[in-house]
């Protein structure tokens, strides 16, 4: 849903940004303060909370035994879902995930999947019969802009926090050993960096106010070795090839900076 912003405010913000400044005092390429907490939900196999400025996201990871997909009989399953919980913003409404929630989940999913962050082969129990499914549920608690980066950080932190149950197979049945825990096999650490185009400038980590004014949003996700593993443009504006190039030239370093905070 679109929220109207007074024209005078728009003018001022774009003016400020063209001078290289932002209304909250940040540099164009500066993130808001990031606070990451792991293990916030005892009942989840893994969990985390991320505060990115005033934006707040929680992620819970649950693991269950399911049948594998036919085309990947020897791999576990990753499922990412996002809920824009009504308490997080006056614009969020109860009901099934809308296109914004679905896009959010799919962009986070794409980063984790493309980077092969989870070793899904390790999650196979009986090929073609039983595998572990990793459910990553993103819960947006307060929306003050840049939900994608906050959610991606939080998902990665929660996956790093995740402890799987031990198991044994007895007569074709999977028996979970509650007292035996080991970490989820994590091989890679994808980090997303989101830009907003305001006027002719790109800024990272847009606040809600900036998102309401931006023409375009551009998210690039970078994995450990500096390869790009997901991209998503959003919003009803356009980017020039030069702008894409500009984003590309800063994104790897920026991702490394954020990765240090998340992985620790």
């Amino acid at each position, binding site marked *: 849903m679109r929220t109207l912003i007074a024209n005078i405010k728009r003018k001022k913000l774009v003016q400020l940004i063209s001078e290289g400044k932002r209304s909250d005092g940040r540099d164009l390429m500066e993130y808001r303060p990031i606070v990451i907490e792991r293990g916030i939900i005892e009942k989840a196999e893994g969990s985390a909370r991320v505060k990115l400025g005033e934006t707040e996201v929680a992620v819970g990871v649950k693991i269950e035994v399911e049948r594998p997909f036919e085309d990947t009989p020897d791999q576990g399953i990753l499922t990412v879902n996002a809920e824009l919980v009504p308490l997080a913003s006056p614009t969020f409404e109860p009901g099934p995930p809308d296109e914004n929630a679905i896009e959010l989940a799919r962009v986070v999913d794409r980063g984790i999947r493309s980077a092969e962050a989870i070793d899904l082969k390790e999650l196979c129990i009986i090929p073609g019969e039983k595998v572990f499914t990793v459910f990553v549920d993103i819960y947006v608690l307060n929306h003050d802009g840049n939900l994608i980066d906050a959610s991606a950080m939080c998902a990665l932190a929660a996956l790093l926090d995740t402890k799987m149950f031990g198991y044994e197979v007895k007569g074709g049945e999977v028996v979970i050993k509650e007292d035996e825990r080991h970490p989820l096999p994590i091989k890679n650490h994808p980090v997303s960096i989101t830009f907003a185009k305001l006027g002719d400038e790109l800024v990272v980590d847009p606040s809600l106010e900036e998102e309401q004014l931006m023409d375009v949003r551009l998210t690039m996700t970078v994995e450990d070795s500096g390869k790009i593993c997901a991209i998503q443009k959003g919003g*009803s504006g356009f980017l020039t090839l030069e702008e894409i190039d500009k984003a590309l030239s800063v994104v790897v370093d920026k991702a490394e900076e954020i990765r240090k905070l998340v992985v620790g």
Partner: protein
Amino acid sequence: MFLEKRPEKLIDKKGLRTDGRKPDELRPIKFEVGVLGNADGSARVQQGKTIILAAVYGPREVHPRHLALPDRAVLRCRYHMAPFSVSRRKSPAPSRREMELSKVIREALEPAIFLERYPRTSIDLFIEVLQADGGTRCASISVASLALADAGIPMRDLVAACAAGKVDGKLVVDLNDVEDKYGEADVPIAMMVGLNAVTLLQMDGMLDPKEFRTALNMAVEGCRQIYEMQKEALKEKYALIREELEK
């Protein structure tokens, strides 16, 4: 029902692809404009084995009314795959993938339309994938852009879309279904070619920044070729009548 298997090689010894194309070669593409009787604008594309229909209704009154915007038209877009369009029957209920694609396709087309000229109305765009063989989001954007122009909706430019990607370690353009499924990366883009403006940019898989730049340039070149075909297709209907009468 049949399941496809991964071909042993996606690029053969001669450097050709599973359908015999060179790395920088598009599939054969045929656009047709004005193919549906009831729609205000329509178009059809066949790109390799991918077949897609697009229809536009509007600008018209918005239902339900609260969705209307006071200062511009809303573009509503529904990307949908027919149950028989893929090897295994797809449930006709919209999937999460279809919902995301509907959104990014809409956002790829919005910059091209003078939406501010028709406040409080909607322009409804329906895209039906009749046969999917890879590259459906890009083909959808290209064909939808023609349906919009056919409906007489004022546009800044046509939007052409094309993907580039990496298969068997090689960068290629306009991926087909197996290349998309078993390749290492896919970068679909859309462009208002005449204005040099990128309106869709996505990627999955992995590319280092240098490879990404090359892939992006290949996709841009693909868009340029498709853009020319789009222009020809829009003119064809009228050019044929002209030819017939001037004989």
